[in-house]
């Protein structure tokens, strides 16, 4: 099967000498929902910028569905729909005009563009706003407008650079549903996000990038399975300063909140057994942090050592 994205030895040195990418290699399968994660300044946006030809590369090879960035740029561009991190449409143009114009740049006739505009703006809940200038939209609507705009030429690869930044939870979840839906219809999706819960919820495969290099590239399932220890927070009814939990690392974050590191092999039953034996009533329990977040921090730190 042709790879949706194939990157080999990608380097980018900006004016002034900063090396943003240091020979990055990356492959994304067709139909995948892929998360590209990394701390700020890791090189995510530079990578996306190069793929979408907004940034000139210094060296390396980029192919999208087999089309080479250097020799088949026009065809390569047709395959990609880009949802950038920052709003980059004219604030004075009307919503419908923005998406129809974008289709025009890809050679889609006006007639077809208007039909598609109705389809995608309706799907994204913006059809009612079609005759409003973009500046009149809320932040969430602007994000959805950028998704509609990116889909109008019906690309095979959709790249979303932090699409849910600053979007409320309800809207974020509706965007997740929509992205899952179009992924099931066959569109390959690459997503960068700072919400690791989002990546865990949506993506099948994951690449972690740090200091211009990929430090991990695997399936989400495999990555999460490498997590040996999870931290749980127990809210208890009464303070128990003398509590002893044999075989576990634990600490009191306040008089009524106990944090316990639980090894996968140990399980939670043993924790409850000991708490019950001490007469400690547990009111509620939750994970301390997102599982992926722990792995992410761990992998990035390891890569820097």
């Amino acid at each position, binding site marked *: 099967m042709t790879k949706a994205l194939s990157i080999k030895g990608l380097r980018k040195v900006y004016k002034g000498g900063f090396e943003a990418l240091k020979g990055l290699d990356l492959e994304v399968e067709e139909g995948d929902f892929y998360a590209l994660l990394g701390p700020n300044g890791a090189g995510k946006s530079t990578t996306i910028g190069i793929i979408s030809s907004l940034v000139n590369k210094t060296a390396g090879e980029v192919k999208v569905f087999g089309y080479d960035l250097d020799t088949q740029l026009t065809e390569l561009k047709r395959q990609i729909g880009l949802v950038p991190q920052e709003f*980059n449409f004219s604030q004075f143009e009307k919503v419908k005009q923005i998406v129809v114009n974008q289709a025009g740049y890809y050679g889609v006739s006006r007639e077809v563009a208007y039909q598609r505009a109705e389809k995608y703006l309706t799907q994204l809940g913006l059809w009612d706003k079609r005759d409003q200038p973009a500046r009149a939209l809320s932040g969430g609507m602007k994000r959805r407008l950028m998704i509609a705009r990116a889909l109008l030429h019906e690309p095979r690869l959709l790249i979303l650079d932090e699409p849910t930044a600053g979007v409320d939870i309800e809207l974020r979840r509706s965007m997740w549903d929509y992205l899952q839906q179009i992924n099931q219809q066959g569109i390959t999706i690459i997503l960068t996000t700072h919400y690791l819960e989002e990546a865990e919820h949506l993506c099948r495969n994951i690449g972690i990038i740090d200091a211009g290099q990929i430090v991990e590239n695997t399936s989400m399932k495999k990555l999460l399975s490498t997590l040996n220890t999870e931290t749980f927070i127990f809210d208890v009814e009464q303070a128990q300063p003398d509590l002893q939990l044999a075989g576990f690392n634990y600490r009191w974050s306040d008089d009524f909140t106990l944090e316990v590191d639980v090894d996968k092999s140990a399980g939670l039953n043993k924790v409850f057994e000991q708490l019950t034996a001490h007469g400690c009533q547990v009111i509620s329990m939750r994970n301390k942090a997102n599982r992926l977040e722990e792995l992410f921090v761990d992998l990035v730190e390891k890569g820097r050592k």
Partner: protein
Amino acid sequence: MFNSTGFIALKTIWIKECTRFLRIWVQTLVPPAITMTLYFVIFGSIVGDRIGQMGGFTYMEFIVPGLIMMSVITNSYSNVASSFFSSKFQRNIEEMLVSPVSTNTIIMGYVGGGMARALMVACIVTLVSFLFVDVRFAHVGIIVLTVILTSMIFCLGGLINAVYAKTFDDISIVPTFVLTPMTYLGGVFYSVSLLPDIWQKVSMVNPILYMVNAFRFGFLGVSDVNIGVAIGVLVIFTLVFYGVAYQLLQRGVGIRS
């Protein structure tokens, strides 16, 4: 150069550009009419009556082509410079950069939009001039050719300026410090034959002189310079500016990191 995809993209940019300046017609189409009316009243009627004849024509007749040309130059330049720079500033130029639109299409789309505004303004100013003088049309073909080439040159100039511009101030520097002096010294209000020899020679390096005189030849049938040379200068400037604009956009100067 274009297949149907390229043509649709070109049409899209052109319509977008025309929509932009028509949406703000009070700022784009009305001011030239007011400015030119003032020029006609002050320089044509009040001052012109005391000047008498110039080149065998009334002073009002003499300055009409130059004033129309002045509007064409200003509007061509400012339309493309401000529109392209705004696209850079708001980053919606990226909409085109990520798409398969070719560099030629981008240039032609913006230049086409600028020319549409400039030609519309030229028509408005010509209509205004009818209120003050009996305008003649000696060589319509020369008028059309000159106005098209001049507009194209300054649209390309505005595009090049916008490519390099980093702030809105940067797109007002050239019109203020270069275009306005060159236009005033380009024979809009006088015949260069009135100047001392040395200043006549200096004037010959001013490309706007050729534009104004070619245009005046189209209206009145007289020119301070050879009409063939004037058209040749316009063609050369068009080609050079197009080449420069193409190279800059192709390399992504000011628009790609």
